[in-house]
């Protein structure tokens, strides 16, 4: 069913077509897992549990989906809220409940991804891209949650500005500010390896 929209699939599922929902899971499991994984500081186990919980819960509550809402935005809103609740509960368990998540400095246990070893058929560019990717991935993991979620949705997932604002329940200006702040922090952290960071022309006003 490649030509069928997400919204149509969800409506089919509402009338009992489980295959339609399986296809939606297939379409979205990678981007959703990517978001959860990064929001949880690259913590695979809890991210996999959360992924299963979310898709199972959405299946159980599918009758509440309203087709006028864009499915991807609806889905990521739920995913994001689950991540927030998980992070809050983890902070509680770690005795950090007095630190508001929105102003937090990351989850505190971000893991640096191991760098992959180059294979014999890799071109130099592929190796460089992978190394840059590993460095960038761990820098994203060091971003405070409020900036990381915007960066992952906008830059990594390629979500539009408007959809990101809807998913995060933020106004347009705040999304812009958070995304800009995320880029500033990444520039301070890993700007050197990405190049074109030449500020010789001045500091701006």
């Amino acid at each position, binding site marked *: 069913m490649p030509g069928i929209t997400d919204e149509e699939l969800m409506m089919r599922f509402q009338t009992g077509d489980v295959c339609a929902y*399986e296809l939606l899971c297939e379409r979205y499991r990678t981007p959703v897992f990517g978001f959860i994984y990064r929001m949880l500081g690259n913590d695979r186990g809890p991210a996999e549990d959360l*992924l299963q919980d979310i898709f199972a819960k959405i299946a159980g509550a599918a009758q509440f989906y309203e087709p006028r809402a864009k499915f991807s935005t609806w889905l990521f*809103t739920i995913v994001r*809220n689950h991540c927030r609740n998980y992070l809050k509960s983890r902070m509680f368990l770690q005795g950090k*409940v007095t630190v508001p998540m929105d102003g937090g400095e990351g989850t505190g246990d971000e893991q640096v991804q191991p760098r992959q070893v180059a294979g014999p058929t890799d071109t130099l560019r592929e190796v460089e891209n992978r190394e840059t990717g590993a460095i960038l991935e761990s820098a994203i993991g060091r971003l405070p949650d409020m900036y990381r979620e915007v960066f992952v949705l*906008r830059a990594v997932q390629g979500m539009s500005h408007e959809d990101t604002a809807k998913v995060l329940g933020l106004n347009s200006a705040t999304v812009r500010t958070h995304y800009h702040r995320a880029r500033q922090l*990444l520039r301070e952290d890993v700007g050197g390896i990405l190049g*074109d960071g030449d500020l010789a022309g001045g500091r*701006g006003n």
Partner: protein
Amino acid sequence: MKTCDKYRELLPEFLEGALETDAAADVATHLADCAACRAELGFVRNLTAAARRLSPPKVSDGVVLRMMERVRHPSGQQRRTDFGPVLDVNDLAEYLRMDMAALEPYLADIPCFELGGKLLFRRQTVEAWVQQKEQSLGFSSGFEGGARIAVPESAETGGSLWTL
């Protein structure tokens, strides 16, 4: 007059062609005059390209299988909801959807009574305790924030700490 920071906030949408014509022209005019913002534009382009190239973390096959199994047979995953007015410790763990080890640190905090050597909890009291926790922590429902979904009354009777 806009500061460079205000222009820089707009650079991703400028690159995506998502700005209105007037706003895009305003950014383009500023870029023509500001070398620092032109350099920033290059950085945004490189950073975005590198971010889009990041490999998505792979979901392991076992997880996909379990996930699809739960979707196909949700009944197997449903938890007990038919709790009576009094719970023992095991009931409480199930009621709160926690395992015993995780529940243990909270036991001293949850009002209880002892009868015949058994530690018991009134469900109503536990619900009040949960409500107090919810209020003090300001937790939100997973479906808030524009998800436009209602949780049926019956789903609430499970009384879990972390709702949908």
